């Protein structure tokens, strides 16, 4: 229920229109989600040309297979799922796929659950050497270097603003799994930024 606006009947009507092949309905969902899908693909692949191709192909493919869509998730999630799957295929094809790396927090604590070393302060780093703009650049750079399983959850959650249900449906994972992945992704990003 969380985050779902009351879109049920308009969504059903929209789906009917898409299935009936109304071009205005297709145009509408593209205007609504197109640039989000494209920006997601660009940041997944790091390559605008390939991203455009993937989004194009995904949308055309969705057009041809819309009859099989059972409406069990939102149209938006379904679109992101299609683009995500194609992006991962492309990344695998280029043999650049990196699965979840080691858990950044794994070695921070002793058996008693206490910090082994002090958590490095970044007051110096952030407040003195790095102003917000540089910190932003650094976060962005490091985000592009994260394993894809980390990067995709951060992009969908923080950047594209999908809610929990939408992300879970798009990535076909459970909310518990998503929670763990988001935490690990942020921990990896923090470690990369702090250099610790």
């Amino acid at each position, binding site marked *: 229920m969380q985050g779902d606006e009351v879109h049920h009947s308009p969504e059903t009507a929209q789906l009917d229109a898409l299935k009936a092949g109304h071009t205005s309905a297709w145009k509408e969902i593209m205007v609504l989600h197109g640039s989000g899908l494209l920006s997601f693909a660009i940041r997944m692949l790091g390559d605008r040309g390939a991203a*455009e191709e993937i989004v*194009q192909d995904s949308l055309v493919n969705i057009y041809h297979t819309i009859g099989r869509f059972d409406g069990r998730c939102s149209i938006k999630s379904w679109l992101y799922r299609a683009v995500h799957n194609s992006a991962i295929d492309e990344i695998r094809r280029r043999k650049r796929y990196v699965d979840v790396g080691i858990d950044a927090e794994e070695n921070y*604590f002793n058996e008693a659950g206490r910090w082994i070393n002090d958590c490095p302060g*970044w007051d110096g780093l952030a407040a003195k050497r790095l102003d917000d703009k540089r910190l932003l650049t650094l976060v962005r750079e490091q985000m592009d270097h994260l394993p894809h399983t980390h990067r995709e959850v951060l992009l969908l959650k923080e950047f594209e603003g999908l809610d929990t249900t939408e992300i879970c449906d798009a990535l076909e994972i459970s909310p518990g799994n998503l929670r763990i992945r988001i935490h690990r992704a942020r921990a990896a990003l923090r470690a990369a930024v702090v250099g610790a």
Partner: protein
Amino acid sequence: MVYLKCSVVVGKISEVIDGQTSLMTRMRFHGHIMMCKNCRRYFEQFKRVKEFAGKVTSDDLPPDFAHVMGFVMNEIENKDV
């Protein structure tokens, strides 16, 4: 108040930031954070990372989708004929 282990507190940070914890967990979490410098630092860094990971700036104009949309609509309209 430091009876939560640091490893447990750190493991809860994302849920706290995302508002997914119970009031009791949140209170125990913040109680620990107040007393523990390391967890407090880590929490602050996590919040900043989250904030910056999702920050949309003026350099982040949404990509121009017109070209892709033109291609797809062309495909769709041709199939309709």
